[in-house]
């Protein structure tokens, strides 16, 4: 078993990853609460945005223009999908709604493979100016990009919580989460509220895509699936409802995933982290429900 000192460096990398998973998880939860759709295309949209940003940088465009393009791309594509298919899917069950977004993910995945083929072994990558700057804390090197990743996760979580609680649009989203039809009869423009949720989710997909392309890899498989798996697990632990729990779960998933790295006996299984943690959480939560029901019946 590695010593505590050997684990320490992975706290930094794990927190940074966890921050981005949190950001993604919050995006998924917000969209689900407003529309009932689990957006499985979240990672793919971010991935394609990141690839577009990469191509722009290669073409000589300023980095910041490329990054913003990635975020805007995420917002536009997700909003476009939501506006086009959202109304038709609104009355369908969660299975149909979710699988339809998986279809979008696979289409985007295919487009990325076509547009950015790996022939010749070349490897696209994204770098931020903040990668090479940073500071040292108790001997641990921390880059500004890692700080930004965690800070974004925290900021998006807090901001979303405040937004949902205190803004008019947020209140409408919460109302829709409770009952879509009653909300509509009260005069809430549900199409507009849904559009806002799709747009917000897409913007977060773009942010997560560009950040993970730098911190993890500009790889379509990684960005399309790994991000969604980890953030979906966090959202599941948050019961697709609680933003603070989703945030906490995402941070734990990121931390545990990276803290396993120095344990050579199990490090090759670290990608199972989201599954294992989600399974444990679901088991514990369902056990709680069973006990509650038993007490009620008793």
């Amino acid at each position, binding site marked *: 078993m590695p010593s505590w000192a050997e684990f320490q460096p992975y706290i930094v990398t794990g927190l940074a990853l966890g921050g981005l998973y949190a950001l993604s998880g919050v995006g998924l939860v917000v969209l689900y609460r407003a529309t009932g759709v689990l957006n499985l295309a979240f990672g793919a949209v971010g991935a394609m945005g990141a690839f577009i940003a990469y191509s722009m940088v290669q073409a000589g465009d300023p980095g910041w223009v490329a990054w913003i393009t990635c975020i805007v791309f995420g917002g536009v594509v997700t909003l476009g999908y939501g506006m086009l298919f959202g109304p038709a899917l609104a009355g369908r069950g*969660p299975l149909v709604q979710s699988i339809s977004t998986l279809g979008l993910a696979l289409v985007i995945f295919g487009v990325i493979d076509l547009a950015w083929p790996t022939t010749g072994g070349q490897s696209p990558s994204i770098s931020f100016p903040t990668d090479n700057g940073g500071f040292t804390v108790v001997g641990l090197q921390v*880059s500004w990009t890692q700080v930004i990743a965690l800070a974004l996760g925290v900021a998006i979580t807090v901001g979303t919580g405040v937004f949902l609680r205190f803004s008019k649009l947020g209140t409408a989203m919460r109302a829709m989460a409770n009952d*879509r039809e009653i909300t509509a009869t009260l005069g809430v423009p549900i199409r507009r509220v849904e559009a806002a949720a799709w747009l917000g989710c897409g913007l977060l997909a773009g942010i997560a895509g560009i950040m993970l392309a730098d911190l*993890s890899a500009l*790889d379509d498989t990684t960005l399309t699936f790994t991000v969604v798996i980890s953030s979906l697990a966090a959202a*599941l632990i948050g019961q697709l409802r609680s933003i603070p729990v989703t945030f906490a779960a995402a941070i734990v998933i990121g931390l545990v995933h990276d803290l396993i790295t120095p344990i050579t006996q199990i490090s*090759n299984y670290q990608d199972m982290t989201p599954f294992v943690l989600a399974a444990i959480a679901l088991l514990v939560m369902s056990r709680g429900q069973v006990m509650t029901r038993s007490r009620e019946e008793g």
Partner: protein
Amino acid sequence: MNRPFHGRTRTAAAVVAAVALGVLAGCSSSSSTSSTSASTSAPASSAASSPAASSSSASAGTVSTSACGTKPGVAATGTPINIGAINTKQPGTDFSDIENMAGAYFACVNANGGINGHPIKFFPETEQTNPSQIAALAKQLVTTDHVVGMMGNSSIIECSVDAAYWKSVGIDVLGAGIDPECYSTPNTASVNMGPRYSSDGAVQYVLAQGANKIAFDQSNVPGTTYIAAGPNAVAKAKGVSIQDYTENVPITSANAIATKLVTAAGPSGAVVLNFTPPEALLILQAAQKLNLEDRVKYWACSTPCNTDFLATSLGPKWNGKLFVNAELTPLDGNTSPTAQLFDAILKQYGSDVSGGVGSFSEMGFTIAEIGTHALESITGPYTIAAVSAALEKVSDYNTGMLCQGYTYGSYSEHIPNNMDYTVTPDNGKFVEASTGGGCTLISASDPQIAAYRAIAGTAPMAG
């Protein structure tokens, strides 16, 4: 009343989410499998390319393509000699530049007299790591296309799938090997060293420079134990401890991996990587972002890292810090006649060679060069037996691309390329390392190398 997000619906959504986790994981892991395969392959053969670098080799251009045939400018019109090849080509893993470059070379030969007046009819096939597909392709090439030789094979699993078949029909294969059977069976010989011996070379280099500890990392794919056995034997023969790691690919946590490797190697040690270029680049860039590159004495790579785009992506911080095993002659700034012929063929016939100058195209060129040399030695009919016999007679042939003369021979196993270069980044290009970068024999501390030399001897340096 429509209550989509409450009660049973939420439970249903949770179930969907849980199922989606599994589905996505399935997609992810199947994609990983293909990338995994890529990692298996690339260590063996890749070191892909710099598409823009086609002028970097023989810019002088004084050798025209007429040098590839015996009758310059005279197209071959005789009965064709059918030659086949099988390459892996799938998303994330594309070795088809090898057969494409071999095809370009054969086209050049055909336009300049052919093989004693006979054109080479080339049948390049691609596969997607499906064993039944690969077996069917081999049979189709022999029974339908009537090929008399296989020149240009490079596949993740083709050697293991078809080795017995090639033996049964008597075909000797000349290719760029990846899996162990490409080096351990009687009917296949490669122009490259493959992942194990290339990793041997990388470890051997850092040991020669004084590294006192090795962290050896490669993709988590079938065969990693076989590959790691080589570097382990080389390090242990020098009394240096070596720690093996494997990573699931595609890599999702490069920062953590870079940190782990640097910690394991220590300040006087070396990190040695055996990955495809994209995965190796991820780890190296992560090390750079975390300012870890100077926390170890050396970084080294098996052949795949030997590609200019990697040097360009890494930047000057890695000049003289990263050392890469190179199985074939570095072409940057190379003005030898062979390099010039390579450049001329690539320009005139290589429109299908999507990666341009690089180890893939170099391997294809070298395979076709040796194959043409063997075919030209045949005086009778061009049959499977005649072509195989001609290949087996190739001995100490100077390709201009390898450190050693190339010998196919009639051996039970073939590791004809067992002498390497070492290159290091130099402002966006890879150049021969100034210290100990020249042709060096792979250590016979690797028992496989020792066994091969016991039966085939040690080929001298070319030229």
